[in-house]
């Protein structure tokens, strides 16, 4: 019998079956390169990944301060759970740095999600979700670190290595450019950086033996302006640091998965590069392996590397150097500060890459030693197949990608520290494209670990330290209210006195912190925006916490109105 079918209702956009508004005020229309250059002159906004091109993660906002922070309370919460199967099913995490423009917040999540939210109420204004294959190869989690905004557009990367431009008012796709090869193990998680009329993005996938690169695209058209490889081809400068009789360079890693900073006067972008591949087996890539584990200073007009500084030559400990490059000036010197996974705090002259100082910032460093002139003495490294080797810091580093902050007011750096060791057993592996290429079995210590928030002056001297029983792996935010904010893996969100390290306020968010909170104000009221949600490569940076509560909530805190004990009240109009 032939079935008589009824016509089903037409397919719907899933977001249409929600309270999403579908439109945001056109606040990004007027966001220009010139405004981003002067981002800190409009402290009510957080216009670019670090708050400003200098990478400091500092806001001069001071409404919330040491005198009143004890009253800080949730103003609103935005939540959004996962749907269906997605890549790295158990590893999704809310890692982004919320961008705020004149009352509108732009946020990314896991699995290709981008949102515009009302920064005052949390109302979902629009939603975009890029379709991501659930077999996308990911080393370290289904995550994304945020957007860039300019000229009416929101720029983001997708896990399957596309860079997309969305209409900031509607969330509709304007252009979409693939810039990585998922079959080669490439992916993308970085927050883009807008410089002039370009949007610059980096690649992920250093655990799959690919070749790191930065790419720059025209803001308006999406046409690629340049690509800068972080591992040279044979014959190019730096190629002498790779074997000349193999394809090691072609699998050399040096990925660029964390946003860089920018000095407009020098016209240099400073970008950190990741570990060489394979992570732990140095025998197949003799030499220093430039430009892995380095800061590269790149001319944004043409993508050329102007200078470099390598923090860990011939790395066999997985000591990526992707983390922030903080630009600051001292005694008329233009300097760059970097806390590396290898446990050392570097200060460079950012005009030429010369080392100014290097000091340890972590308690236990056994892999090797770096002297005051930057000379490296290797002490413990995996060399023999099947032989366990233990070292500190472990491969998640003395500091993870999550960021330090610098307060020009206190002239101190604030850094989250992970004091965790690991045992590596060398297991050599034949390279096959698209498969993990670590060269070892990794076991991070689940006991005898700890963490800190440390305040460190530009000479490397520790000014104060706050101890925690588990590693600290969330970005620090410093404010003009003499406060330092940082979250814990166990869910607490903390405010410290920036001068003394005294813990002044704490709120339990219910899931661990592994994101980059930001601050802004709307109608004269200051807010702290805190994405929470425990995930990513937890067994690396949070050993013993793989089973901790998951979550996908964005908490936003503010001071209650005078005479109010909290934020419950009549609905927003």
């Amino acid at each position: 019998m032939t079935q008589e079918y009824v016509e089903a209702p037409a397919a719907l956009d899933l977001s249409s079956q929600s309270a999403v508004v579908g439109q945001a005020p056109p606040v990004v229309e007027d966001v220009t390169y010139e405004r981003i250059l002067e981002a800190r002159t409009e402290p009510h906004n957080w216009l670019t990944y670090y708050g400003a091109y200098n990478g400091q993660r500092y806001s001069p906002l001071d409404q919330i301060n040491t005198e009143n922070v004890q009253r800080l309370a949730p103003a609103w919460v935005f939540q959004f759970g996962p749907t269906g199967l997605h890549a790295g099913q158990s590893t999704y995490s809310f890692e982004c740095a919320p961008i705020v423009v004149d009352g509108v917040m732009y946020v990314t999540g896991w699995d290709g999600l981008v949102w515009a939210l009302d920064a005052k109420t949390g109302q979902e204004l629009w939603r975009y979700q890029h379709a991501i294959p659930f077999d996308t190869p990911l080393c370290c989690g289904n995550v994304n670190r945020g957007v860039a905004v300019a000229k009416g557009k929101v720029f983001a990367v997708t896990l399957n290595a596309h860079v997309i431009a969305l209409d900031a008012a509607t969330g509709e796709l304007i252009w979409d450019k693939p810039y990585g090869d998922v079959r080669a193990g490439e992916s993308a998680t970085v927050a883009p950086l807008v410089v002039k009329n370009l949007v610059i993005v980096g690649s992920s996938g250093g655990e799959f033996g690919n070749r790191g690169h930065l790419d720059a695209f025209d803001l308006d058209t999406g046409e690629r302006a340049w690509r800068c490889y972080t591992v040279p081809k044979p014959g190019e400068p730096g190629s002498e640091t790779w074997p000349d009789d193999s394809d090691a360079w072609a699998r050399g890693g040096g990925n660029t998965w964390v946003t860089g900073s920018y000095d407009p006067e020098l016209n240099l972008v400073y970008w950190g590069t990741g570990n060489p591949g394979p992570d732990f087996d140095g025998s197949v890539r003799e030499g220093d392996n430039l430009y892995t584990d380095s800061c590269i200073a790149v001319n944004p007009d043409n993508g050329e590397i102007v200078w470099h500084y390598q923090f860990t030559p011939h790395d066999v400990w997985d000591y990526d150097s992707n983390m922030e490059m903080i630009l600051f000036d001292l005694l008329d010197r233009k300097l760059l500060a970097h806390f590396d996974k290898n446990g050392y705090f570097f200060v460079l002259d950012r005009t030429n890459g010369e080392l100014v100082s290097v000091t340890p910032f972590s308690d236990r460093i056994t892999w090797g030693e770096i002297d005051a002139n930057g000379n490296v003495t290797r002490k413990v490294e995996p060399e023999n197949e099947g032989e366990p080797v233990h070292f500190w810091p472990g491969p998640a580093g003395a500091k993870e990608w999550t960021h330090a902050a610098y307060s020009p007011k206190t002239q101190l750096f604030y850094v989250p520290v992970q004091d965790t060791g690991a045992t590596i057993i060398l297991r050599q592996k034949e390279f096959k494209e698209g498969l993990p290429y670590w060269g070892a079995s990794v076991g991070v210590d689940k006991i005898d670990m700890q963490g800190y928030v440390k305040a460190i002056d530009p000479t490397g001297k520790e000014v104060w330290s706050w101890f925690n029983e588990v590693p600290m792996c969330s970005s620090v935010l410093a404010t003009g209210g003499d406060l330092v904010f940082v979250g814990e893996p166990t869910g607490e969100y903390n405010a410290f006195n920036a001068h003394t390290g005294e813990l002044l306020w704490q709120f339990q968010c219910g899931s661990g912190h592994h994101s980059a909170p930001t601050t802004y104000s709307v109608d004269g009221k200051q807010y702290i925006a805190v994405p929470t949600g425990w995930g990513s490569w937890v067994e690396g940076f949070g050993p013993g916490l793989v089973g901790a509560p998951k979550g996908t909530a964005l908490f936003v805190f503010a001071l209650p109105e005078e005479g109010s004990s909290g934020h419950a009240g009549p609905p927003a109009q």
Partner: protein
Amino acid sequence: MTTSEDELSAAVNELGLDRQNKAALGRLLPHGGLAHAEEGPDGRLHAQVRIPPDELVYNPSIIVMPRGGELEIEFFNDDANDHSAILPNNGDKKLQWLPVYSRAKVTVNLDAPGTYWFGSGALGNDEGRGLMGAIAVMGDVPEEAKLDRPDQPRP
């Protein structure tokens, strides 16, 4: 321990794990067959998916696209229960309700290689894990997205 897919299927059938509420509560890792999406005169790829009675599967539940692009799926619900499909799509997931004895066409854009999930997760009263399927997009990324390096060995 079984050694081949045929032996596995026979063992699963013998235990009753391939039927609703026979051995376990639902059907073990339920899935239907595989079909290749075919290109139509409109340049889009097309596939048909049916929901047979009392099996709680999409059939086929594996759709193979030879390349990225637009895919039009025509659904037929032959079951006496309501079902649905949430589908991957660049921009926003698509939600297709599938009432009893209904048919529907839905078009999605999947422009990149890899395997995508679709399922009946929107229907609160769907049994157990509900219906699940996969759309496998074959092919490579565009040349301009590839790495500048010699061809490398693949698995």
